[in-house]
């Protein structure tokens, strides 16, 4: 079960206590991240990848669709943001919206081809489209700048009409990304706990059964893919702002694989928050292990194998089973005492 049980009060809330804790925790990052030997830019990266991983998990965790080419939409968003900035408008809002729309458009295009497919065929179609878009990004020099990427992207000021924030320094940009993150978290929370989200979850459990209940499965698969693509595009636009450039690398098969890894290591299949746990683990591990040894992929790969073998439901899943395990023990103890009462009377 991805997200909270439908009978939990949190499922009906717009903002849950957990969200507040997570937001407050993230809001303090710039205050202490330098003290523990990391750097403020890492905080921005974590937030952007969290937005990306959460929207990816809508497809993988909620709807159970194996999409292995999601980097495409992240990349398309990044390029669209840069191109919109150069050619269309210098308003941040318009550029971010265009990044989202461009990625969603790419999402619809891909979804129309793949939504009638299942399992391994679905998975490989997403890989194929990923490779197609990636090759185009590398070869179409005049638009994307080829392997050098699209350079000189600016961090446009966030103009709210009455007040305008300059996002050039990392701290103010961090809080801007955090604001976007908050909006996305609320939107995704409502989406997964809406009737629509429950149908997606039914499709994950059994496509055939959902179809027999009269739902047009392919339409749900296509629409959720599009929504997820659009949100990934938004994250991509933010990433272009963070890096001040857009590169084809994020669209490669490796990078698309990493987002799957992050989501699963964190426990995206069992928890709404899993992807974020995974992103933090992955990025911090990259920096910490990367600082100690040049072969960080070796160690991370071994860690990943260990997680798949021993805790396939991921870090959030392990955490949950510890919490629930405690509860179950308490319940069992209660049950025993209740039985004793019965026998005594």
């Amino acid at each position, binding site marked *: 079960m991805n997200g909270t049980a439908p009978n939990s009060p949190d499922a009906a809330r717009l903002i849950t206590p957990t969200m507040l804790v997570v937001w407050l925790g993230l809001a303090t990052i710039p205050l202490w991240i330098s003290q523990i030997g990391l750097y403020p830019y890492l905080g921005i990266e974590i937030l952007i990848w969290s937005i990306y991983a959460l929207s990816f998990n809508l497809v993988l965790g909620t709807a159970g669709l*194996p999409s292995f080419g999601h980097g495409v939409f992240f990349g398309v968003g990044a390029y669209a943001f840069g191109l919109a900035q150069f050619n269309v408008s210098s308003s941040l809002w318009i550029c971010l919206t265009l990044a989202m729309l461009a990625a969603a458009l790419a999402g619809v295009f891909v979804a129309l*081809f793949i939504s*009638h*497919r*299942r*399992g*391994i*065929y*679905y998975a*490989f*179609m997403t*890989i*194929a*489209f990923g*490779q*197609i878009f990636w*090759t*185009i990004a590398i*070869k179409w020099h005049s638009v994307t700048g080829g392997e050098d990427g699209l350079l000189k992207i600016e961090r446009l000021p966030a103009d709210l009409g009455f007040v305008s924030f300059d996002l050039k320094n990392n701290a103010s940009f961090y809080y801007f990304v955090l604001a976007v993150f908050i909006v996305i978290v609320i939107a995704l929370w409502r989406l997964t706990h809406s009737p629509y989200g429950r149908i997606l979850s039914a499709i994950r459990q059994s496509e055939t059964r959902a179809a027999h209940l009269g739902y047009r499965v392919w339409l749900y698969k296509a629409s959720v893919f599009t929504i997820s693509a659009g949100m990934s595009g938004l994250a991509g636009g933010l990433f272009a702002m963070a890096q001040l450039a857009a590169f084809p690398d994020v669209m490669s*098969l*490796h990078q698309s*694989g990493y987002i*799957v*890894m992050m989501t*699963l290591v964190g426990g995206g299949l069992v928890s709404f928050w899993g992807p974020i746990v995974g992103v933090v683990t992955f990025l911090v591990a990259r920096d910490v292990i990367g600082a100690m040894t040049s*072969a960080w*992929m*070796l160690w*991370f*790969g*071994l860690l*990943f*194998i260990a997680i*798949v*073998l021993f805790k*396939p439901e991921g870090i959030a899943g392990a955490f949950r089973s510890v919490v629930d395990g405690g509860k179950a023990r308490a319940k069992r103890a209660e049950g025993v005492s209740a039985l004793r009462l019965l026998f005594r009377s």
Partner: protein
Amino acid sequence: MIDILPHILNGLTLGLLFALIALGFMLIVGLMEQINLAHGSLFALGAYVGMQMLGPRPPMPADWAAAWLALPLGWRYALTLVIAPCVVGVVGALVEFCMRRTYGKDPLYGLLLTFGAAMVIEEAIRLTWGTRDYVLQVPQAISGGFIFQDLIWSTYRFYAAGIAAVIIGLVWLVIEKTPYGAIIKAGAHDSEIVRALGINLSRLRLAVFIFGTMLAAVAGIIVAPIWGIRPHMGVDAVVPAFLVIVLGGVGSFWGAVSAGILVGLAVGLTGAYASEWSLLSMYILLVAIVTFRARGLFGKKSVLEA
């Protein structure tokens, strides 16, 4: 018309090589319903081990090495084609030991496990051999080229295509015409009954996995002189292998072989006329075919599409 002929021949040889690369992958997908993403890394490992054995410093004790180097290159090459896959087979066995825990679960877990294994093997290759390119030595008889109808043809390509065809034929014989093949196929079809008949299923799976891995290593040694040896060659191989299987349809032997040849032709022909985009052609081919045929060319129903 006549100038397209070399490109078609080139595409055919390339196609046989793709089919050869996909062969081990196909065995594991078709008979165990597991996607082995480490296939490409094991393929690369095979090429590296082969290169090391044929190079000036073979990985063995000094007195053996002297005897080994005294052998003629042709003999050493033939022996390497047998020994290197055995070495890689041991690594494959290790992967299978880890993979056991995922049997019976969502196939996604097996795929992820092997993705992790691929990362580890590729990084280990980088640590051992560095990132530079290597060349695999081949005997005089199969290197060089010859001139036919005013065109220079590479002898090695014909040798590679020929040996690929032979290996494909042998694997087909093993699967279709021997009792071992019958047991393997039965294990894929209904594992419970096979176990009830007193066959040790976990040993059978281990054997199939090792066999698939060894085929990957053989493919690595055969393909290495054409593609060159570098750490990235694993990824360059696993994606086409996966593609060939999906295009041919899961669970179909000749589907995979014909898909391999089709992909080879597509890459070869686009390579001749629009070389920049030649790698793209196989993906477009896949999208075009799977859009209209839900299970690839000759696919059967399988757990992998649940």
